[in-house]
């Protein structure tokens, strides 16, 4: 049997999974990454390493994933189709896997005009679905171009899904295609609008997709009313309901309120059939993660067998 990641075992053994995201530093030094990872170590089953998120240049996801493995932490290697063609993507997949990364998350990538190099050329040789397809092929020992690999790859294939982008029907169709080509787990965009998320999950269950793929719901704790409005107005594909904005505005301690909202969301997500875990994206607020996991009753993390 192919090597399995901790996240994979946790999910397959039916535990409610917890993952968190860490953004690499903007310098050639693992220290800031290690500090954040150390803080999260006992509270999550795996740590996602973002790939130049929002198109801002950072230390490469592949090298950071290697460092997490050396720390004994299960990484989720995020990779976008924005910056690399199929040659570079497959090469980086091999690079991450050679360093011990097994979880691989296939993304389209934020458009480069948002980031630190707006004049750059994007690649998009493949889209995220095609990348999943190629990655799945590599686990069968075949490169995208058809050549046989010297040895097949062990990978736990992940994808993203945004139930809050439009049109909603296509979000289910996209998930269906991702599962069809080989996605084994998905992490969603941040859930604030639980009604819409529940509607999405209902459509997912109707097709039985929840039985074919592990769905981790995305959570981003709100730090302030300003952050809530920013998420609503500036981040493409995120909806923040008005009552949450009002709660954040009225709160005496916005950070505390943000965590309270987050815990309520987690509780409600646990009630939704087909949600296999949560993915915490505490952007620039990683220190909130241990508290959230603890208060949500998700600590200690399970020790998966095998």
């Amino acid at each position, binding site marked *: 049997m192919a090597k399995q990641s901790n996240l994979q075992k946790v999910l397959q053994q039916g535990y409610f999974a917890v993952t968190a995201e860490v953004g690499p530093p903007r310098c050639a030094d693992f220290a800031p990454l290690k500090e954040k990872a150390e803080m999260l170590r006992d509270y999550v089953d795996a740590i996602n390493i973002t790939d130049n998120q929002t198109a801002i240049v950072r230390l490469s996801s592949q090298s950071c994933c290697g460092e997490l493995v050396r720390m004994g932490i299960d990484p989720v290697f995020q990779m976008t*189709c*924005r910056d690399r063609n*199929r040659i570079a993507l497959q090469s980086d997949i091999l690079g991450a896997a050679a360093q011990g990364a097994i979880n691989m998350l296939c993304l*389209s*990538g*934020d*458009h480069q*005009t*948002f980031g630190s190099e*707006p004049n750059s050329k*994007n690649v*998009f*040789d*493949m*889209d*995220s*679905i*095609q990348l999943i*397809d*190629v990655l799945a092929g590599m686990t069968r020992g075949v490169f*995208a171009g058809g050549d046989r690999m010297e040895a097949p790859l062990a990978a736990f294939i992940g994808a*993203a*899904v*945004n139930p809050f*982008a*439009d*049109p909603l*029907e*296509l979000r289910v*169709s*996209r998930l*269906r*295609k991702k599962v*069809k*080509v080989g996605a084994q787990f998905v992490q969603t*965009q941040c859930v604030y609008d639980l009604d819409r998320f529940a509607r999405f999950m209902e459509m997912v269950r109707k097709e039985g997709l929840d039985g074919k793929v592990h769905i981790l719901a995305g959570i981003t704790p709100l730090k302030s009313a300003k952050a809530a409005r920013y998420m609503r107005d*500036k981040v*493409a*594909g995120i909806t923040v309901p008005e009552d949450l904005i009002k709660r954040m505005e009225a709160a005496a301690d916005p950070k505390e309120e943000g965590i309270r909202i987050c815990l309520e969301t987690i509780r409600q997500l646990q009630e939704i059939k087909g949600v296999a875990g949560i993915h915490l994206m505490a952007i620039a607020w990683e220190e909130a993660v241990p508290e959230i996991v603890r208060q949500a009753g998700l600590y200690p993390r399970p020790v998966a067998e095998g």
Partner: protein
Amino acid sequence: MITGNRKPLTQIFEMIKFYERILIVGCGTCVTVCMSGGLKEAEETAAAIRLQRQQEGRPVRVAARVVERQCEPEFLESLDAELENYEVVLSLACGIGVQCYNLWRPNKLTLPGLDTVGAGYPVKQGLWYEACLSCGDCMLAHTGGICPIARCAKSLQNGPCGGSVKGKCEVTKVTTVPEGHDCAWQLIYDRLTALGKLELLDEVRPPKNWSKAHHGGPRKLEREDMQIG
């Protein structure tokens, strides 16, 4: 049609600063329609150059002309007689026209006075959208006649990214199109819904063969049946 924007005058002034006899040549087809490189724009550019040189107290002889199409050799002949009187040609045609002028009139340097924007169509008066990137492997049959290669900011082939909201592309915020870009995949979804062909979206489009596009090297079209000798 090919669309383009006339280059900013400051750029044009810089490009031609060492010349005193300049022939500005518009193109009578695409860029005339999008009102950026026809006779009218050639005349405006000539007037601006004259004014600028007058302010600088430097002489210039500049004339504005137009040919029907700069990408066909026979149309260039109409200007050949007066071409001798000028040091340089400033072409307001697309990049193809500028190259053709250089190729077919090698004794003169032809400079570009226009930035080519792309192959597109008119949306309304004064607005054109890019619509084809000449990828060499048309997929419009799968997408209800709307091209995601040209019209999706990420050229996605299997549906919209997570940045499509209320029919608009996430790149909307930084775009120069006043009302924002429509999400190509929302348009495709709406069109296929209307056609009753939504099942087309369930097909997984495999990685595209980009070697048929420019990525396979500069392309040429060769029709042996049309060649003489």
